[in-house]
């Protein structure tokens, strides 16, 4: 015996809730995010509880976890080469700051070498790039 099933009507899925959620996601990203900076991904900067306005410096030097210094490329640079770049860009003459993007695992010896080389090159102010975190697990 043939049973006639009632034919189901295929209703289209209501897409409005989906659009609402996606719009909310876009809003969240717009509010919580900031435009991407040119921060090198391989460097994990030190965490700081002090939040200061981040101002990009005309010259940025990277200090990797391997205690080597880098400018724009991937080839390590000596401090003499960095001092030459400082002289070329005129950072010291204009009294501008140099930014140091230092990996948190780098050693203070490299930091001090950089400090000394920059002082010799005439750079007065150095800004160490940090990552702001309200709670820091470094104090005692």
């Amino acid at each position, binding site marked *: 015996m043939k049973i006639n099933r009632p034919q189901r009507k295929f209703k*289209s899925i209501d*897409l409005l809730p*989906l*659009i609402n959620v*996606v*719009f909310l*996601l*876009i809003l969240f*990203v*717009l509010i*919580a*995010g*900031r*435009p*991407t*900076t040119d*921060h090198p991904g391989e460097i994990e*900067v*030190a*965490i*700081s*509880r*002090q*939040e*200061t*306005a*981040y*101002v990009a410096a005309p010259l940025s030097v990277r*200090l990797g976890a391997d205690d080597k210094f880098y400018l724009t490329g991937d080839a390590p640079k000596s401090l003499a080469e960095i001092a030459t770049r400082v002289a070329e860009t005129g950072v010291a003459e204009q009294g501008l*700051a140099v*930014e140091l993007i*230092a*990996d*948190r*695992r*780098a*050693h*203070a*010896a490299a*930091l*001090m070498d950089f*400090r*000394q080389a920059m*002082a010799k090159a005439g750079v*007065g*102010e*150095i*800004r*160490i*790039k*940090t*990552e*702001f975190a309200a709670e*820091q697990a*470094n*104090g*005692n």
Partner: protein
Amino acid sequence: MRIDRPKRKLEAVGLTPLIDMIFLLLLFFLLGSDFVRFSQSQLAPPRGTGGTEGMSQPAIISLAETGQVQWNGAGVTRAQMRERAAGLIETDAEQLFVVMPAAAAEVQQVVGVMDDLASAGASAVTLERDVFDIDLADF
């Protein structure tokens, strides 16, 4: 004369292009945004190079590889260091603090000490090589 126009069927507006665009926007903002909040720790010029130096003697803070801190040669905790720094700043707002990290100390430890000094109100913090790490070839 009355003209009978053919009745137009009202078709539902296709939402697929709209959803495509919204997803593309979402992807764009997700990839183009940074959720990390960067900050900066400022290092004052070294002593004797014309930087900001207060009237009083600079406070020397040594930082060992283990994270232990010495204040003018005496071992202190980080909380005590903050208290002493705040006390000095009350008398001289331009008090200079010289942090001398051990060569093997990590940048995170140095930034931690600088943070503590900044939270105590210090505006002039500089770094100098620990006397035990000075290379005589520099002279």
